[in-house]
């Protein structure tokens, strides 16, 4: 495989969007005719064999795509992909983990926003459990984290959660982020 073809293949592979002929020429600093022949040769290579992806021409550009008939497997791949927690979910989960047992009102107070939706998601994902009702008027439900929560985060027990003190020790700027400003903390 000649060098230019290799470069063209690598560029199309690594680019996030379809690459036009013009763009390829300017990146590779190669004459239009040569890049075009390299593209044609590549096209041929992929057409000759049943590969996992092919060189598609999209919106005047080139991109590797997977053939439509493989979609059912790729769907599984994407479904099984582990997603990251949203910021809201991570924040809510963190509050519950550190402050359990805790009621929804308390969580919402801390977060400053309605958290019903996020809490439902966390409950559906089996990360929370109910810890009974709080002994105050209205008897609100109290929440805590589940066993699955520990498994997901690879914790042996809740004691394995880093304490906030350890945490702020990592970041000198944050050491002021201590509790409330009560009378007794002027002694620094």
């Amino acid at each position: 495989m000649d060098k230019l073809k290799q470069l063209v293949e690598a560029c199309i592979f690594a680019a996030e969007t379809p690459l036009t002929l013009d763009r390829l020429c300017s990146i590779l600093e190669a004459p239009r005719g040569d890049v075009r022949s390299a593209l044609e040769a590549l096209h041929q290579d992929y057409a000759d064999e049943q590969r996992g992806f092919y060189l598609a021409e999209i919106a005047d550009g080139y991109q590797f795509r997977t053939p439509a008939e493989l979609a059912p497997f790729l769907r599984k791949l994407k479904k099984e992909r582990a997603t990251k927690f949203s910021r809201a979910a991570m924040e809510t989960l963190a509050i519950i983990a550190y402050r359990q047992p805790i009621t929804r009102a308390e969580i919402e107070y801390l977060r400053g926003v309605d958290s019903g939706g996020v809490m439902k998601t966390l409950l559906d994902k089996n990360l929370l459990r109910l810890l009974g009702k709080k002994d105050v008027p209205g008897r609100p439900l109290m929440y805590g984290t589940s066993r699955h929560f520990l498994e997901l985060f690879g914790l042996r027990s809740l004691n394995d959660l880093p304490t906030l003190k350890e945490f702020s020790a990592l970041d000198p700027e944050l050491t002021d982020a201590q509790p409330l400003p009560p009378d007794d903390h002027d002694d620094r």
Partner: protein
Amino acid sequence: MSIEIRLENFSGPLDLLLHLIKSNEMDIYDIRIVEITEQYLNIIEQMKRLDLDIAGEFLLMAATLVHIKSRMLLPMSDEISDDEGEDPREELIKRLLEYQRYKEVSELFQQLPRLDRDVFTGYISAAELFPTEPDEDDILAAEVYQLASAFHRLLKDRPVEIFHEVVQETLSVSDYIERILDSLLHCRRKGLRDFFHQRSSRAELVVTFLAMLELVRMRMVNVEQVEPFSEVWLSLAVSEHELNTAQAQEALSDYG
């Protein structure tokens, strides 16, 4: 030693020491401690003269060097050599050797082909593959650090460390509920921070906070916020008239 030595070019005192040993063509296993100590102290002295901040670690190492030097100069009596027979430099040598290994390896790390700098990958996003399907049943990926970090960020902006405090009986939540309602009757909207006065004791802060939670729970107070982490605003959720209804009074009477 050359003037252009600058501490910030060294990642720590061990790094500086290694540099001195190397530029003096010494063997790590046989450091000429008098010479090295003198050069090290000179550099610290120069920095001081230039009025530069010297990190504590560099000063600590200076003290260590002086200590080793003095032990080397002591005549070794037979008595001492039983307990302290080992070379006073040994601990330092160990640390230097160990540090040197990681320093070398970290230079190697800098050169390893790095993702998105030297090598690149391609992938197809789910949105590209299946533009019409929203993804739902995702498996969650999580690390403890991200969890702790979320909570820490929250407390940093809004430090409320009080759920597990024991409230002293002398302060009644219902008093504070009334105070809050009172002040909200006078101004329609009040920032959360305004309720927590600098002079308040810790217990007062706790009770004020509990009173707020109760008011929110009873839906007598609205809590609003323009965007996450901005000021929280409290306002009355009920009219002045409703405040005096039997139901409200009953709810409030649970406290005190």
